[in-house]
């Protein structure tokens, strides 16, 4: 007993000292170009350490129970399971080309797009067993779900189409042409929004049949769409123009366009209202304050892509 106390006491004393540095939480950045993860201290906006992975990590997703942070290493054909609080790698699982990944809202499915293999894999999230593989041409890029988890929607960059996968029957319901080089896709207010990277807009798509109802201009190279945590603002990154645009999520009217150079890609939202944005081609993570438009950039590894803020949830 005394031994145990002797062990616990110093730890208890240390804990408050370790506290302040973690006050703002950590940002975990996936450096796709040099096979590392950058772990940043959000409060001080500095890099704490760099964790080596195998080859080419692109996207990140938190497991439904919040216990694991999944990082897809597409180049290594490997899924990494990280501790979401520290960024430490706990487990590695061989998996074919995990480029983009997302869990269904009900937590039942994990859908993984294989950009370089023209396939979309649907896994049973509880067992990580492959439920079904869908060959989809070509370059399946990003995935999102219907709120009731009945459908998954995948953009096909190479063929300008959006594919709808019926998860109950595990079949492709339809594919429809949505615009040039579709990349990011999200569900908003009963519609699908698809960012067309080969154009300057995102398409508003009917989830029933894939018909494009509207096209909303944002800027050249519209790449990915993100909804703010309060669900009031829609953010769109434009790769070619180097801008991040804020739109009213209810009306889809543009509120403001911010200059974010270096090919802005993924976004995560900090509790203080700032946006953390990866800047692919200048090896930085930009911290954008929407209130002032100020952009503070933190140097990270080569071609940073996915980003996850531990303090955000």
């Amino acid at each position: 007993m005394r031994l145990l106390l002797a062990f616990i006491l110093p730890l208890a004393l240390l804990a408050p000292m370790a506290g302040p540095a973690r006050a703002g939480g950590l940002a975990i950045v996936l450096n796709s170009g040099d096979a590392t993860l950058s772990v940043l201290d959000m409060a001080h906006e500095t890099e704490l350490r760099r964790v080596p992975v195998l080859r080419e990590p692109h996207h990140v997703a938190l497991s439904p129970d919040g216990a694991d942070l999944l990082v897809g290493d597409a180049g290594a054909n490997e899924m990494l399971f990280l501790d979401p609080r520290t960024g430490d790698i706990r487990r590695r699982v061989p998996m074919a080309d995990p480029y983009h990944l997302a869990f269904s809202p009900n937590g039942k499915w994990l859908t993984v797009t294989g950009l370089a293999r023209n396939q979309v894999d649907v896994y049973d999230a509880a067992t990580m067993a492959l439920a079904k593989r869908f060959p989809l041409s070509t370059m399946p890029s990003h995935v999102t779900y219907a709120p009731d988890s009945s459908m998954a929607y995948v953009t096909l960059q190479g063929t300008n189409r959006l594919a709808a996968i019926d998860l109950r029957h595990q079949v492709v319901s339809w594919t429809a042409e949505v615009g040039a080089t579709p990349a990011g896709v999200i569900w908003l207010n009963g519609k699908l929004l698809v960012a067309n990277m080969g154009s300057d807009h995102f398409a508003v798509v009917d989830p029933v049949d894939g018909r494009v109802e509207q096209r909303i201009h944002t800027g050249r190279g519209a790449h990915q769409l993100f909804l703010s945590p309060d669900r009031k603002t829609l953010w769109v990154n434009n790769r070619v123009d180097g801008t991040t645009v804020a739109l009213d999520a209810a009306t889809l009217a543009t509120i403001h366009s911010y200059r974010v150079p270096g090919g802005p890609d993924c976004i995560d939202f900090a509790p203080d209202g700032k946006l953390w944005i990866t800047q692919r081609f200048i090896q930085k993570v930009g911290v954008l304050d929407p209130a002032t438009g100020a952009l503070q950039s933190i140097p990270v590894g080569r071609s940073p892509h996915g980003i996850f803020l531990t303090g955000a949830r």
Partner: protein
Amino acid sequence: MTDPFSLAAGWLTETVLLPALYAVGGMEWEEVAFGWALFACYGVAQVAVTFAVCLPLERWRPVERWPDQKAVWVDVLYTLLSRVGVLPLVTFVLFYQLQVGLNGWLSDHGWVPPTLERLVPALLGHHLLTFFLYAVILDFSEYWRHRLSHRFGWWWALHSLHHAQRQMTFWSDDRNHLLDDLIGFAWFTAVALLIGIPPMQFPLLVLLLRFLESLSHANARLSFGWLGERLLVSPRFHRSHHGVLAAGQQSANYGAILPWWDVLFGTADFDRAYVRTGDPSAEEALATGSYVQQQWAGLRRMARMAGWTGPRQAGGFKRGH
């Protein structure tokens, strides 16, 4: 402290490649474009470093002196095309759909290409060691590709373009037939499916290895000493492979970076030193023709050697007589 190559590649991508891809409707290649820009930036650095070291060496202790160096210029073109990435890009585009199909088919059959680190879990976390092992394995596979390219008549016909050069300099390393490059790419793809693609954490080491390959072709009297000659391929060692007597279907010193495989498989020749280079059985166009003439001559020779057209010609001088 940001890597200057990545910064240059990023700048190139953001200001030139991305707007160009957007204009022609090829935005799905944006990630590939950045990879290519990096490759090109390292390529420029490789050429610059090689030039800065090898040119003085060749001036200082040349093996051969030529009245003019007209035949060298085409090798400069070969070097720029392949190191600055025009040829690798073409090869990649040609192979892309094939690779995607093959990868998809393999993963349908349960094949997830491993990495060396997953085959040997003890390597996890030891990146420098892993890189070194990849370099050794890839060099071993290159030894056999090179050896087989001398062995088969049709393949030798293509590779003889590399050997036809009588004014061999550090520019000659990338002097290869396009079809031979394609075969090399397929060969690498096959190896990658078995052991994965090496990590890119050490671009400077890749630069060093590519430098050694260029140096081994330099027109310079340079030996690494008795032990050094057996550890790394030197200009003296590789020149023997390019000697007029070694040009053909039986040769020696096939190693690209490590002479170990030649020692191991009995193809090493450490005795012949600073010989004249070239392939006496090659038609003149292969040696001194323009880029296009050389490519055509290579194809013609391949057709003859494979017996598709005309009489099958001898594969050049046999060794050991």
